[in-house]
């Protein structure tokens, strides 16, 4: 079976998820539908002197001392296990296709710097560098290719693992790369995921200095307020999601259960500003339209949009603008998972793709919680506060990144 461009259909046959709401797809989905928030006070490190002391952390068993790449690798492995088990594909340690890993940039972190400086009795980089001789542990942990290589080795994926970052669109880019590999016939199966475990003091401070974060520390579960009048920034979060993607025909032939399709993907880069969209909305509108065209669909075919919906004043305004430009007066309902799990950054696009597939499967739209006071300039149906039933065949999932990297996916139900 081929799509409107003559390409193999891309099926999803296994999914895995972890967020601040819990471990595993089932637990996350039921909590999302119940409108629960995973945002809480940070306990991982002291929050003195920080403007923001809340986050959607994933607290890994025994993981108090983990640095970011270790957290990313652990969560990635969890969601890969879950997705591969559901797909029932390959054998243990022998996955029959490549790995597309969306993850944050990594770098040596403070515990390592302090350790090297202590051992060297020298706080300088020259001192630390001398001290780093034969420290393969540091080298392999903080190499950019380290996490991908260890996951590839553990799961036996094929070829060179691809690690990708497009800021807040990273998870969607990983899925797009995987779908393209199947469409061009490079493979019949692959695994695409997004993972992020960046909640540490320095990263929180960096986002704070850009005035991007909510500071509603006294009321964590109310802090993420996408599309609502009093929204004032996103909440930094952690999580991961993985999708086993397969050529629809080979998946059917092996008797796999089809969870849905990645029917299309579209991109458009913005050249306006490092952290803001062009006020003309060209790039986000272009990405949404390109995704629809890639899937061979008209705007009217979309019955629900999984929002980027970060809860920053700017994003939600521009996303609304984009929705109206693409869908006109008949814009479908749109809701933001980030109201409950916060902004999982490199994982967001993958998590939201997973939740989009579940929306189709169950015919149930997850809500946008914390919708207390509507913003008069946002006239969209944001599925306020309570989940509801709806027949959904095609979902558009938006991801818009810092640096102007915008990716939209179309997720669809199995062809009748």
């Amino acid at each position, binding site marked *: 079976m081929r799509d409107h461009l003559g390409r193999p259909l891309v099926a999803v046959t296994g999914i895995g998820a972890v967020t601040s709401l819990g471990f595993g797809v089932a637990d996350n989905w039921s909590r999302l539908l119940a409108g629960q928030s995973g945002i809480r006070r940070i306990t991982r490190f002291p929050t003195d002197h920080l403007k923001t002391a809340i986050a959607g952390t994933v607290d890994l068993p025994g993981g108090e001392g983990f640095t970011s790449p270790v957290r990313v690798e652990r969560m990635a492995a969890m969601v890969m296990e879950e997705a591969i088990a559901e797909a029932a594909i390959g054998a243990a340690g022998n996955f029959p296709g490549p790995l597309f890993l969306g993850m944050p940039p990594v770098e040596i972190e403070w515990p390592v710097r302090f350790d090297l400086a202590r051992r060297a009795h020298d706080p300088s980089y020259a001192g630390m560098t001398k001290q780093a001789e034969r420290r393969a542990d540091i080298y392999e942990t903080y190499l950019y290719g380290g996490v991908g290589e260890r996951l590839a080795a553990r799961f036996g994926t094929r070829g060179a693992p691809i690690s990708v970052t497009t800021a807040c669109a990273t998870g969607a880019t990983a899925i797009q790369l995987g779908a393209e590999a199947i469409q061009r016939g490079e493979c019949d199966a692959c695994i695409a995921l997004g993972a992020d475990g960046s909640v540490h003091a320095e990263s929180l401070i960096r986002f704070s200095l850009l005035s991007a974060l909510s500071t509603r520390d006294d009321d964590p579960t109310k802090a993420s307020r996408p599309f609502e009048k009093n929204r004032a920034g996103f909440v930094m979060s952690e999580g991961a999601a993985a999708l086993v993607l397969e050529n629809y025909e080979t998946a059917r032939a092996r008797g796999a259960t089809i969870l849905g399709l990645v029917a299309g993907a579209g*991109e458009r880069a913005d050249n306006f500003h490092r952290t803001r969209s062009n006020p003309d909305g060209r790039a986000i509108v272009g990405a949404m339209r390109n995704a629809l065209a890639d899937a061979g669909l008209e705007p009217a075919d979309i019955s629900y949009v999984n929002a980027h919906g970060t809860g920053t004043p700017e994003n939600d305004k521009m996303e609304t603008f984009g929705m109206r430009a693409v869908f006109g007066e008949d814009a479908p309902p749109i809701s933001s998972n980030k109201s409950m799990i916060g902004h999982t950054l490199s994982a967001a696009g993958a998590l939201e793709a997973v939740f989009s597939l579940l929306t189709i499967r169950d015919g149930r739209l997850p809500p946008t919680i914390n919708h207390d006071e509507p913003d008069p300039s946002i006239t969209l149906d944001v599925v306020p506060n309570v989940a509801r039933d709806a027949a959904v065949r095609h979902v558009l999932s938006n991801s818009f990144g810092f640096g*102007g990297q915008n990716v939209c996916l179309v997720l669809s139900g199995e062809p009748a």
Partner: protein
Amino acid sequence: MNRKSVVITGIGLVTALGEGADAHWDALSAGTQPVVDETTYAPWPVHPLPALALDKQIPKKGDQRQMEPWQRLGTYAAGLAIDDADARGLVEDMHLIVAAGGGERDLALDEQVNAELAESGDGARLNEMLATGLRPTLFLAQLSNLLAGNISIVHGVTGSSRTFMGEESAAADAVRIAHARLAEGRGEIALVGGAMTAQRWDLLLLYRGGEGLHQGPYRPLSERDGMTLGGMAGFLVLETEEHARARGARILAQLDAVASTAARRTVAGDATAAAKSLLAAVAPEGVDAVISGATGVRGIWGEEQAFLRDLNAPVRHPASLIGHGVEGAFPAHVALAALALSRGALFAPMDPADAGEAPDLRRVLVTGFGQWRGEALALLSRPTLTGAE
């Protein structure tokens, strides 16, 4: 599916030897001495970047201020490639894949924090020092995907934008996927490349922990006991051949095939075998010359030499003269191969291990044997002379 032929119509090249195609051709065809800084980061030598006239490629001072040297270098070289391809008018629908590490840290602040807190590890005080010490915009200069973001902002490249991470492999896969997307008809023109600045303690610290950096005075690649980093950027404008010919673009070389894999390297011979399996798909008919991506890491040097022996073709090792450029290396080496093909001759030997000449240069293989993981090959050939040249 019908695959389209893909060609290289522009290169943007910056190394310690200079910038641009002509400077590199002149230096490397005649034979040249390396430019090395042996003192600033002693005992680790580095190949420093040449002075760049940033205003030529990044006209707004505000844009320059938002970046640190790594992003400026990459953005600058991307502009050189676009100019070289005469493609300024094609940027709106140009696709972009960048191979990136991370941007510079505030080293002075890091050392100040270390001096005060390394012993105590006081988290509250760390917060205070970072919150008051970090420049707000430094984050944007550090983010890996913001090199691509700056290329979009400064040069207007907006077709799409992806950033691959993972040292040498990331760069090879960036070129591979940019090539594959054009070949299957996803767009007509793409910009792909990477950059790395060697004059950075934070990178020396990272790479020191592996099999190590070469220590002591400069030695040619084949005599090193580790990597010598070299600041470099390599960007390529790739186009479908029909698009390039339709607009009358100058074609430097055809990019026939790019392939990559990642041997686990748990047993000797792993990486050699992996590269051999790629060769069967990339260049089954042999090649006239090789541009080697050897990094200087000793273990993998032997694996590559074993692979090269069987190829029976003259080899040039650019890292001997320009150092190892990690994410910048593979695209820079592809650019060098395209340059040689466009001038119809191979470069002079770059290292005592370089031997052989290629009197009739038609097909050049570029190798990539990553410092830790990743094997990759690219095959370039002299463009066919059909159409209006």
